[in-house]
């Protein structure tokens, strides 16, 4: 059920009621709280607060009560509430069994985009607790306070939300790779494969740095989806504590197996080389074997010098728009469809401020949803924005979104895009991993 205007439907008057409740709460009266561009709330079907992105959940109990009432009011009619539009704001609901998630946005995103963001948040909760555990808890006690088990994990959700709002990886369902020559990347993969191929039950070996993928090796038949990889990267970058010592960490990958944990040996290669190696297994007793394997991998990488190459790339980013050097092209996002690997250079001026970069990303989002969400199968889109022209181009092989100078003609924009595609194809080996090796 989608409501266009809440206060015109039969006796609901939700908008005015909501305002009355808001007025009675101190925090919801707070201007800076009200003006946040996007609120995210999680609560249980019994109405117990689980998470609020801003402000303490306890101070928002009445608000949670209202949201829960909205959900159950619609449920009583054997329907499910999806979204409410009011003024310039949009409320989106996602109901996942005993857990209800709500996004309140004033950014003019599509319902689909916000549902996807809520789905990520839900997957983060599952990743921390497993679906089996969440289900069991609420079966046993419907009014359980899930905050007990999520204590300390709020930062994972906070960090993930920032990621979904600031990084093109989320929009494009893709993974950025650390730029490396294919020979170096191959030698890194080989060092891991030759060390780990005999270890039973090792499912994934993942090496990441700067939130980018260096290599990923998987057990035959098992693949890892970009959204699960996003959760792994989110975990690594949310917790500095992984840098202190080797960790043995349970993690559930919702798209791989939401019912149970994988056990992860998590460690950084060396103090000098801040690349994080994750060895994920289904065997809880494998820690010492994986710890030995990690030592051997590091030794091999030191011997073949690739560890120095990695450190260099981490400290001196290779990819900037200056390297691309096509004067009318200001910025672009490229996704290789087969591998889901993406190429997204850092945003150059004037897009390098937080506000401008988020605005540009929103423009990409508009372009992306115009091409993906519509029923028509658009292949090419040319759109004029206030300060730039943007072009989207989708083929069998790739998706490309380009930001161009505002006064460019259609003809010269396609020329520039052709040039850009040639540049990307020339550099392909460095920015993408052509085939994902297995053990």
């Amino acid at each position: 059920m989608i409501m266009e205007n809440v206060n015109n439907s039969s006796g609901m008057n939700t908008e005015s009621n909501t305002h009355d409740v808001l007025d009675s709460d101190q925090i919801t009266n707070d201007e800076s709280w009200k003006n946040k561009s996007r609120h995210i709330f999680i609560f249980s079907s019994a109405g117990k607060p689980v998470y609020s992105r801003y402000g303490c959940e306890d101070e928002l109990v009445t608000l949670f009560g209202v949201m829960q009432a909205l959900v159950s009011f619609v449920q009583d009619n054997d329907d499910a509430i999806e979204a409410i539009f009011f003024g310039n704001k949009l409320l989106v609901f996602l109901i996942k069994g005993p857990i209800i998630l709500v996004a309140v946005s004033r950014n003019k995103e599509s319902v689909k985009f916000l549902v996807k963001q809520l789905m990520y948040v839900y997957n983060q909760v599952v990743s921390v607790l497993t679906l089996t555990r969440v289900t069991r808890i609420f079966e046993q006690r419907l009014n359980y306070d899930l905050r007990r088990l999520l204590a300390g994990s709020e930062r994972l959700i906070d960090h993930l939300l920032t990621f979904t709002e600031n990084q093109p990886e989320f929009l494009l369902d893709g993974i950025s790779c650390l730029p490396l020559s294919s020979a170096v990347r191959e030698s890194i993969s080989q060092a891991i494969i030759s060390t780990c191929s005999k270890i039973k039950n090792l499912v994934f070996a993942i090496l990441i740095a700067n939130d980018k993928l260096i290599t990923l090796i998987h057990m035959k038949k098992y693949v890892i989806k970009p959204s699960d990889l996003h959760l792994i990267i989110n975990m690594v970058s949310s917790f500095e504590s992984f840098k202190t010592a080797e960790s043995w960490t349970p993690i559930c990958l919702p798209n791989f197996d939401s019912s149970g944990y994988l056990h992860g040996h998590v460690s950084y290669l060396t103090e000098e080389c801040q690349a994080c190696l994750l060895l994920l297994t289904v065997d809880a007793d494998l820690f010492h074997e994986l710890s030995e394997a990690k030592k051997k991998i590091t030794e091999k990488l030191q011997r073949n010098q690739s560890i120095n190459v990695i450190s260099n790339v981490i400290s001196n980013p290779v990819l900037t728009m200056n390297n691309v050097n096509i004067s009318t092209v200001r910025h672009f996002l490229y996704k290789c469809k087969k591998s889901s690997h993406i190429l997204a250079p850092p945003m150059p001026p004037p897009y390098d401020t937080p506000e401008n970069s988020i605005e540009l990303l929103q423009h990409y989002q508009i372009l992306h949803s115009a091409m993906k969400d519509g029923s028509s199968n658009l292949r090419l889109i040319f759109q004029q924005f206030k300060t730039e022209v943007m072009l989207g181009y989708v083929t069998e092989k790739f998706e490309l979104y380009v930001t161009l100078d505002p006064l460019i003609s259609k003809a010269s924009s396609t020329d520039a895009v052709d040039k850009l595609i040639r540049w990307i194809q020339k550099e392909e080996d460095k920015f993408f991993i052509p085939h994902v090796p297995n053990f």
Partner: protein
Amino acid sequence: MKTIEGKVVVLGAQGVGKTSLVVRYIGKMFSHHISPTIGASFFTCNINVDDTRVRLQVWDTAGQERFRSMAPMYYRNANAALLVFDITQPTSFASIKSWVKELQRNVEEPLVLCVVGNKTDLESQRKVTREEAEQYAISIAATYFESSALNDCGIEDVFLCCASGMITLSQDKLVKTLRVTPLNQEREGSRTHLHQVPTNEKPPLCC
């Protein structure tokens, strides 16, 4: 000379300073901005006590409630447990007691138990008295220590107690999980702490 290799598990509520204690001892540093442990972290260190080298495999566990159900994985086959609480948080002291009950139920072999009251740098906000904690420690046959990871105070003694306790355990025929081997070669890469066996059995005083 011989070596004894044993497993130490560090348990306690969230935020009592488990990681800070271990990192202070092994890494010789302290950070105010340490992030919560996820799952457990693994450290090793060597302590020489007279003619015995004790190699401690330290499992620094996460205090968050969600990892509670995973704790057996970390304390299984442990030879020593450090039960850490925050002297300014009575609930963290209560949580020690439930850990001890869980260990008593689930660990078959004898364990060296050390109760550690951390954060003595916050003496003015103390809520758990030394007497109360000491008495509890005696009741479970543990040794009581007070420490400050911030001021690097009282921590050496905790680990030394683990090491010398393990030497005693190694003479117990019931103990099968401790690995005792004659020492052949120096292992590289892990720090060795030189110590004398303490002659004074009283818990050391902390600043």
